[in-house]
């Protein structure tokens, strides 16, 4: 294969080239070429003069006003040229990123800065969130002050627990409770304490 630097205007885009690029992606490619230069030669067929690999790079470089580009020449018939055109961009033979790409991208973004990171469209490689349907409204929350009730917790020896149960039962047997609390154990305990405090007074 011959390698040489040629005038970019001498390269012809293959009329059958199936690869397309959006304006946004072309801008990203241009940023990449600005940053790192042409680090991969354009592939072209000496028989037809058509570009085989590198259509987008050539388009970007032309827009950038670049006059010359390194080329590697292949010598292929029509079908082989088309096959190589597709093979050079076949995603099924080019591998794929694994999960470590996220960490690598973070490191790169920190290193080159978010502006360059985005303009190179590296952000599009970051892991994508899931599709989720939002709710129509937020839930209601309690308003105002705390309700005048609370829970208390104690640690008791088994024998103490039995004593308390017995005392609570006696308090309950003394009659119905009055007041806003509907918890019978709480009411019974309060009655026991009230009796105790009265005795102490």
């Amino acid at each position, binding site marked *: 294969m011959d390698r040489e630097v040629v005038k970019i205007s001498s390269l012809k885009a293959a009329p059958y080239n199936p690869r397309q690029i959006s304006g946004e992606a072309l801008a990203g490619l241009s940023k990449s070429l600005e940053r790192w230069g042409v680090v991969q030669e354009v592939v072209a067929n000496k028989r037809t003069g058509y570009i085989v690999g590198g259509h987008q790079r050539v388009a970007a470089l032309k827009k950038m006003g670049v006059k010359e580009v390194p080329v590697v020449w292949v010598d292929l018939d029509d079908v082989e040229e088309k096959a190589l055109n597709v093979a050079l961009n076949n995603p099924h033979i080019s591998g794929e990123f694994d999960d470590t790409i996220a960490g690598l991208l973070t490191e790169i973004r920190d290193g080159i800065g978010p502006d360059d990171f985005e303009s190179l469209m590296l952000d599009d490689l970051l892991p994508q969130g899931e599709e989720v349907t939002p709710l129509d409204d*937020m839930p209601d929350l309690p308003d105002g002050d705390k309700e005048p009730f609370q829970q208390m917790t104690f640690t008791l020896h088994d024998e103490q627990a039995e004593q308390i149960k017995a005392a609570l039962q006696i308090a309950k047997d003394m009659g119905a409770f009055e007041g806003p609390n509907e918890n019978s154990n709480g009411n019974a305990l309060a009655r026991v304490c009230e009796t105790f405090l009265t005795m102490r007074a």
Partner: protein
Amino acid sequence: MASAKDIHVAPISASNANSFMKKLHYSGKVVPNSQVHIGVFWGDRLEGVMQFGPSLCKKGTIQVVRDTKWHGFIELNRMAFGERLPRNSESRAISVAMRMMRKKYPHLEWVVSFADGAQCGDGTIYRASGFVLTDIRVSDSLRINPDTGQVMHAIAAHHQKRRGEFNKWKALDGYQLRYIYFLNPEAKKRLTVPIIPFSRIDEMGAGMYRGKPKRVKQAMDGGHPSQRQGSTDPHAPITLEANDATG
């Protein structure tokens, strides 16, 4: 160029929020009593979540703002953002979320949140989002189990009845910083503690980055790119043994 103005903020279900949080939050855990779940969308994808709920230390925290009613404040207890969101999305998302909270819950006067320097960072995003700093204290609530190397929060130790052994473990080095956002600006006048200048974080050596002390230059530069990492700030590579309480 992607812009934070293009994000969409909307309420989401608890299950969606919890699923997201388990994947992205440094703790891998959720706070079970979270009540309000707000999603941050980029396109049709969920790329960030904020979870609000009652403060775990409600009796103590309520005293920070005098005359606050029992249900008059809420805690932003979990927050995580994906890497795809444009720059400054965190502060934009918080700003929108706070507007939503103010509109839906007029009885809420303020929002409290904690930056966990021992595992995370010192709250860069809070500072960029209009929170005021009200406390910097050495954190001893996260401790390392010497047998497993895993980290446990004091509240988890309490719930698991392991407080005795927990108290013998070594605490993670770091500070916990308490931030408050006033939904009702008038409530700010009732603060019972002084507002601490952000510069105090560095003066105290409390600037934290990924659970390690920051160089002073980094501490207040407000740079966001490496401040995401699925949390309010980057996290240290530590796995939690059980639910923790701070975000």
